[in-house]
């Protein structure tokens, strides 16, 4: 098993420096300085030469999704659809039928309006189309609830044959992009708006459909995706101060979920917290619960937005108000452990 990849992070230094301060909560947010969307656009551009049939589709948000990097490098392989996401996604199906490898990109909330096109035109015929959505979750921040997609993981996960991926940091994004392009089938890739924490080192191996233990522990398993992975590590550090050993799993593929890893974690830790910047209904938490219910029923606590809409604010403020912080995850872990011990 890989050792936790925390060495280069402020958390390690901070927790030794401030260990006496009871109120101190180490923060990983913002430490990489790079956003998942920029990492996505750069990764796509970096590997473009290996995929001659790759075309990138945009609906007037290339500057926001990161695909502006690709447009600059390969203007002849970039197709503009204007502010018309449903048509873009349907045309992506046609481009795939013509032998192209289309990557359509927009904001996650607009991807939601293409759900039926993805279902009908792409997933039903199992076409090799990738949909990359930026600005998901409360991480979308100040634009407010109308821009904060809290339902995308649930919605796209419910479509037969869809693969759903939400990488944790720019390092993983760079590795996930070529893996997704190599995979033959429809994929929903969730990126992110805000500067992302760096939680993984360059030796990290991304495998589609596999979660990875990035910090080991025995009392509880925290299963997280996207920006919540950094907060899960923060939670594990908080719990460690109380002598609680928390395992952290980066579950970047939400569908198909890594059932074997979850079963192993159930046997070895017996309690779970799921953490996602998404509604607690139907996303990562739902996927984990569905899997464990049929293999290893275990106490699970769900950290996410509790079936409400968000509001304007900075991502950290929103995470605090809506209970997505490391502290919230740590509290949930204590509840899960208490339920395990009460059994």
């Amino acid at each position, binding site marked *: 098993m890989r050792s936790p990849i925390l060495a280069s992070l402020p958390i390690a230094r901070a927790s030794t420096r401030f260990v006496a301060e009871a109120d101190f909560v180490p923060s990983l947010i913002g430490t990489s300085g790079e956003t998942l969307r920029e990492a996505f656009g750069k990764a796509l551009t970096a590997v473009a030469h290996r995929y001659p049939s790759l075309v990138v589709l945009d609906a007037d948000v290339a500057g926001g999704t990161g695909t502006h990097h690709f447009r600059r490098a390969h203007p002849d392989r970039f197709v503009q659809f*204007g502010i018309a996401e449903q048509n873009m996604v349907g*045309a992506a199906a046609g*481009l795939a039928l013509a032998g192209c490898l289309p990557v359509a990109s927009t904001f996650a909330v607009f991807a939601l309006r293409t759900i039926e096109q993805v279902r009908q*035109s792409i997933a039903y015929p199992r076409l090799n189309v990738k949909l990359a959505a930026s600005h998901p979750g409360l991480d979308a921040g100040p634009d407010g609830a109308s821009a904060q997609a809290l339902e995308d993981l649930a919605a796209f996960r419910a479509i037969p044959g869809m693969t759903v991926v939400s990488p944790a940091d720019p390092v993983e994004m760079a590795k996930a992009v070529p893996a997704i392009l190599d995979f033959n089938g429809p994929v929903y890739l969730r990126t992110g708006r805000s500067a992302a924490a760096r939680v993984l080192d360059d030796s990290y191996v991304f495998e589609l459909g596999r979660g990875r233990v990035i910090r080991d522990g025995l009392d509880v398993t925290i299963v997280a995706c996207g920006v919540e992975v950094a907060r899960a590590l923060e939670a594990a550090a908080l719990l460690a101060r109380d002598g609680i050993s928390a395992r952290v799993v980066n579950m970047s593929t939400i569908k198909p979920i890594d059932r074997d890893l979850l079963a192993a974690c159930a046997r070895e830790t017996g309690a779970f917290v799921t953490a996602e910047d998404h509604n607690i209904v139907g996303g990562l938490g739902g996927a984990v619960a569905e899997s464990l219910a049929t293999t290893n029923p275990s106490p699970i606590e769900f950290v996410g937005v509790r079936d409400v809409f968000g509001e304007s604010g900075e991502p950290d403020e929103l995470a605090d108000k809506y209970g997505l912080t490391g502290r919230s995850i740590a509290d949930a872990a204590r509840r899960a452990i208490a339920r395990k011990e009460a059994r």
Partner: protein
Amino acid sequence: MSDLDAYATEIRRIAVSLINDAGSGHPGSCLSAADLLAVLYFRELRDGRDRFVLSKGHACPALYAALYLRGCFDRATLGSFRRLGGTLQGSPTTTIHGIDATCGSLGQGFSIALGLALGFRQRKHDGRVFVMLGDGELQEGQVWEAAMAAGHHRLGNLCAIVDYNKMQSDDLNERTMRVEPLDAKWGAFNWHVRPIDGHDFDAIAAAFADARSRPNQPTVIIAHTIKGKGVRYMEGVPSWHGSVKLKPEEIARALADLGVAADRTREYAFRG
């Protein structure tokens, strides 16, 4: 009778019979489109090069008939229409030989056709893409997203055909949601607009030739048609759009109108 007339009649016979076999389906929409499909499949489409997308997917019995007549599958396959485990699904799917796009949710096939045309241009393939839309389908917003994009990208390899039978599921377009002025709408989206009589084979062929001659502009053929064309009691009656179950006397009258002798109607019972 010209060969096109014969093919169109056979498409109509098979389409209504498929619907009769299955106990459900949309006869009116198949009958209005049959002449257009006959010219497409027996004159215009070049095998292996061109593509056709039936965006008004509910008319798939007519498409299946045309594909059968072009040898895409055998007669026994016709018995599988709308049947559990059957090849011929209630809406077009890519699992059927000769069909590239899943259709049935209106508006979507048009975007797929647009993507095919863009893809052909991207890959420097000289194929042409044809897509048939219903008139009621034009009420879908996605249609106009795709129309705007095709005009913007000057897709001369894309030809849309509107089966303009003036009726939709519940009623006349005019009473449900007016789609006129159609010619002006498409023109405003930078398409070459060619209104024709959609039951005149020469006019249909000439419109396709016209479309072919315009490499830098998409063409829309506004094909004025009659819903239910060829079956007198269905002609111009909106209720035959529907998913309907035909009564025994209704299929008998339909096949009689389509020139099938009473002692030969068994040949059109595909479920055996």
